[in-house]
């Protein structure tokens, strides 16, 4: 069988990405993400939250080199921002008892610092879990699972098409900027010049995108998008293995019990 025949044949069975993490059912991953971040949030210890952040890195690493690189780039930048601002602001401005240093309204306190640290870890672990979920779960898998549950085709279309639209919008914006510079509007140079050139095109950019949407809708109409029956799928995921379901239940129980235990008088 040549490669094209292999490609076509691959649709006859459930599609596998070839990576353990990526092949997990989207709902499994959603469940885990929620369980982990809720648990760590409610349990409140620094180390549980830190553990979640570390788990995020590990899971992304397991999901493939490309993915891991993207996650590290994006998440590290975001995490750093949160750490810097939350710890910094809280340390300097939050009132506390143990004062280390003072200058005007800035008062560096131990309580402020630890509060900031706690907040930063909380925000970062929530952020990390959500980001990781989206990184290791391709949108088309999410949409497939959602459709399988009975969501209308329009919903999945909107989600998936929006993502593509954003890419298209970027290309459009570039072309429009080129055409403006071809008319003598200065687009290179300092930020102010560039902003001056960019802002007037925002309106036609979006208008153009909307006009394009009308045609897209017509095109989708011609492909029976408004049909009332349950659609079949060319791209299908495997049935969730029993092991995954068991693991989810197990994880949920562990989290619930831990949280209840913590809040027991």
């Amino acid at each position, binding site marked *: 069988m040549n490669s094209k025949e292999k490609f076509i044949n691959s649709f006859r069975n459930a599609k596998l990405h070839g990576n353990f993490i990526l092949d997990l059912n989207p709902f499994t991953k959603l469940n885990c993400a929620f369980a982990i971040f809720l648990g760590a949030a409610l349990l409140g210890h620094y180390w549980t939250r830190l553990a979640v952040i570390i788990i995020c890195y590990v899971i992304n690493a397991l999901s493939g080199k490309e993915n891991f690189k993207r996650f590290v780039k994006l998440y590290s930048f975001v995490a750093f921002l949160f750490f810097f601002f939350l710890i910094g602001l809280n340390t300097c401005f939050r009132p506390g008892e143990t004062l280390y240093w003072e200058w005007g309204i800035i008062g560096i306190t131990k309580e402020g610092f630890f509060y900031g640290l706690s907040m930063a870890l909380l925000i970062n672990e929530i952020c990390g879990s959500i980001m990781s979920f989206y990184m290791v779960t391709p949108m088309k898998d999410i949409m497939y699972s959602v459709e399988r549950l009975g969501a209308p085709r329009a919903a999945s279309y909107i989600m998936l098409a929006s993502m593509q639209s954003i890419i298209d919008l970027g290309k459009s914006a570039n072309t429009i900027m080129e*055409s403006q510079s071809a*008319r*003598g509007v*200065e*687009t290179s140079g300092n930020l102010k010049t560039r902003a001056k050139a960019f802002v*007037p095109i925002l309106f036609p950019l979006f208008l*153009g995108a909307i006009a394009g949407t009308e045609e897209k809708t017509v095109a989708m109409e011609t492909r029976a998008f408004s049909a009332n029956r349950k659609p079949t799928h060319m791209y299908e995921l495997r049935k969730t293995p029993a092991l995954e379901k068991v693991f989810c239940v197990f994880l949920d129980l562990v989290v619930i019990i831990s949280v209840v235990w913590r809040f027991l008088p």
Partner: protein
Amino acid sequence: MSIELQHVHFRYPDGTLANEDLNLVIHEGERIAIVGQNGAGKTTAVKLMNGLHKPTEGEVIINGINTRNKSTAQISGMVGYVFQNPDDQIFKNTVRDEVEFWSRYNKLDEKEIQSRAEWAAKLCDIEKYLDINPYEIPYSTKKFVSIAAVLTARNPYLILDEPTAGQDVAGVECLSKLLHYMEQDGKSVITITHDMEFVADNFKRVVVMAHGHIIADGTPAEIFAEESILSEAKIKKPQICELSTRLGLGNIMKIETLVNKL
């Protein structure tokens, strides 16, 4: 005064070679058509002429000025460019505002702004649309709106990217009239087109591109006579030319000529 491309190469940032060793001289007032497949490098070549692309090798010199040291906006004063898709260029809420844009941006006085706008609108036959929102007018008319807007800059060189696409008979006639007017006004027009009948009817000089190179530069009769050029660039002869060739009468461009020969 001319646009000169001297051994110009253009490579995209990702490394793809779009144009190789382009050598071309277009004198002020000259009218040329550029033809060839999509992907042959026509659009990148004209973008080199208005400064949207800077050559990765070689020089592009417009009326004595090297484009390397100028921004696109600065070169646009000499070379006007009408994009293929008018929606990429039009951004004002009325046709009038769109056509007046260049004059206003360059702070011409009000009388001049009005007169240029009216002149351009008349030339492009869009006077009746002046107070309408561009989004409400048909695509083929929008093309003329974007042409009118660029005309007001009165550049010595004008580039039209596929002006005949989607045009009906009236639209193509309007374009012919426009080309004729520009020539009389001493302005150069460089047109990218796929319409070979339009080329045969309106141009004395045709530049053929394929695989990023210029493979031919001559009159329509010369171009259509070379089978190798036609097949390499994947272009077809106009109907009359094809007919005369099949009848063994060589390459005839005009109907009257063919009729007289028979």
